[in-house]
């Protein structure tokens, strides 16, 4: 099913290049209406920007100032994505469970996250939920001290809200948000595997968990790999939202730079280009992965 879509989105297989494949290539045979103009434009933008950044001192300065935030952007995204995958897998399994509690807990989580804008969720998780949990832990510590288990109690009381850095809260917020999205990806991936697979595994005496682990999930994960890749790209972009928590990712650094130099053009063009370079190269990578595993035919 996906293979025909793939042929279309893959550049060299675009109908525009039909003539190329036949080896009797001539300009007349290129279908200019189908030509991927967008890709040519993208390359052009990249080249123009690169030249500008390299030749204009102000652009140069802005660009390299902002790049300082790249480490934070990348590490926040990577950390949050790993946690979100784990959370998403657990929640996805909960969604398809027959058991009342996991099913309802998972659905509640997904629906809560879906119903609130991401920016609001980030504020809420970082500034309300995390402090709330710390307060809870502190209260537990105080209670333990009161009933005379002071040593454990003081351990719990020692955690202060300010000890949880904003970068960590940003990771928690992004993980919780994306965990709910990825849960739906995993759920759909698992449900796309035919019922006969679970029945075959169970008929051989495997438990539900064993059947999931050895039979269903390996197939489901393969199927959702491209979707996971695309969600990773979305998360990279959405990580710019954590700048509202004053986490010094590239967006926050660009904001700061623009604020004190008043070079808004240079700051935000450089910022946009940075994101674009990362997202476009990642989506090409996703396509390569997608192609490779579709072509090996299993």
């Amino acid at each position, binding site marked *: 099913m996906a293979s025909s879509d793939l042929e279309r989105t893959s550049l060299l297989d675009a109908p525009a290049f039909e003539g190329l494949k036949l080896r009797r290539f001539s300009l007349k045979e290129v279908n200019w209406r189908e030509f991927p103009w967008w890709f040519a434009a993208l390359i052009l933008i990249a080249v123009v920007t690169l030249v500008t950044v390299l030749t204009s001192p102000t652009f140069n300065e802005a660009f390299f100032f902002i790049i300082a935030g790249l480490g934070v952007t990348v590490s926040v995204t990577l950390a949050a994505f790993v946690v979100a995958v784990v959370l998403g897998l657990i929640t996805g399994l909960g969604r398809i469970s027959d058991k009342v509690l996991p099913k309802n807990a998972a659905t509640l989580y997904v629906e809560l996250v879906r119903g609130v804008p991401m920016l609001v969720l980030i504020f809420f998780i970082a500034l309300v939920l995390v402090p709330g949990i710390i307060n809870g832990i502190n209260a537990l510590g105080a209670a333990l001290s009161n009933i005379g288990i002071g040593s454990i109690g003081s351990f719990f009381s020692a955690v202060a809200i300010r000890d949880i850095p904003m970068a960590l809260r940003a990771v928690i917020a992004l993980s919780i948000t994306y965990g709910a999205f990825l849960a739906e990806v995993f759920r759909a991936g698992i449900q796309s595997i035919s019922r006969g697979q679970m*029945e*075959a595994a169970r*008929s*051989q005496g495997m*438990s539900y968990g*064993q059947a999931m682990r050895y039979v269903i999930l390996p197939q489901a994960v393969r199927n959702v790999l491209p979707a996971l890749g695309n969600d990773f790209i979305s998360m990279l972009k959405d990580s710019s939202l954590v700048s509202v928590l004053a986490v010094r990712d590239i967006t926050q650094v660009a904001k700061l730079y623009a604020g004190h130099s008043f070079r808004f053009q240079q700051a935000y063009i450089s910022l946009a280009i940075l994101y674009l370079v990362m997202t476009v190269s990642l989506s090409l990578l996703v396509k390569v992965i997608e192609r490779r595993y579709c072509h090996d035919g299993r």
Partner: protein
Amino acid sequence: MTGANPAMQPAADPIIELRRISKTFGEVEALKDVSLAIGRGKVVVIIGPSGSGKSTLLRCINRLEEPTAGEVWIDGERITGSDEQMNKIRADIGMVFQHFNLYPHLSVLENITLAQKIVRKREKKAAQAIAMEQLKRVGIAEKADAFPNQLSGGQQQRVAIARALAMQPKIMLFDEPTSALDPEMIKEVLDVMLMLAEEGSTMVIVTHEMGFARAAADEIIFMDYGEIVEQTTPETLFTHPTHPRTKLFLSQILQK
């Protein structure tokens, strides 16, 4: 048991016993108070029109379908549906499906060793040895390293049979094992099943292959509307069916 042939003696030492099994899906009564005993080493073929409850009956034996009422006894043990017990009992009951249901992400060899390793707790080497032995039995040892999608339907079904046999089951269940096959591949699967029958395996088979039923079955069961209408020997059923519904069904399929 309505219309059961009085000449058939109840199995003396039944390995499968269904006692007053009912199964409803919402409004649909797929099985209506069905009782059945199948003796050790017997080959039992179930026939009947579409929707008569053949698959449901078969799937109640290993509890892929949970009966709404009634008891299932396997080898003298009442199965209650507790998870551990079910997994243990299912490991002893091989099942072959209409659509093969091989694990597409695993090679043929891995398909056959997976459950051996995680359910039977066999070492990899031992599991592979048993797998190869079973593949030889069904005649496709050379395909051990292939993946399911590289095999024909007939080969896939033989791998599925080998996968079930590798668990060394006490009972083999087949649900229309040749219905999804191209005509030229049906024989290679039926031949394997005939071989198993001759070796004395206990087999319960839902099939529309009347020639096979005649050749291999010790008993034949005709089902209609969720009930066992007739249970007798193939000769009796094909030559002197007692029940009008059996006669009608046989005349319909033998016409084709």
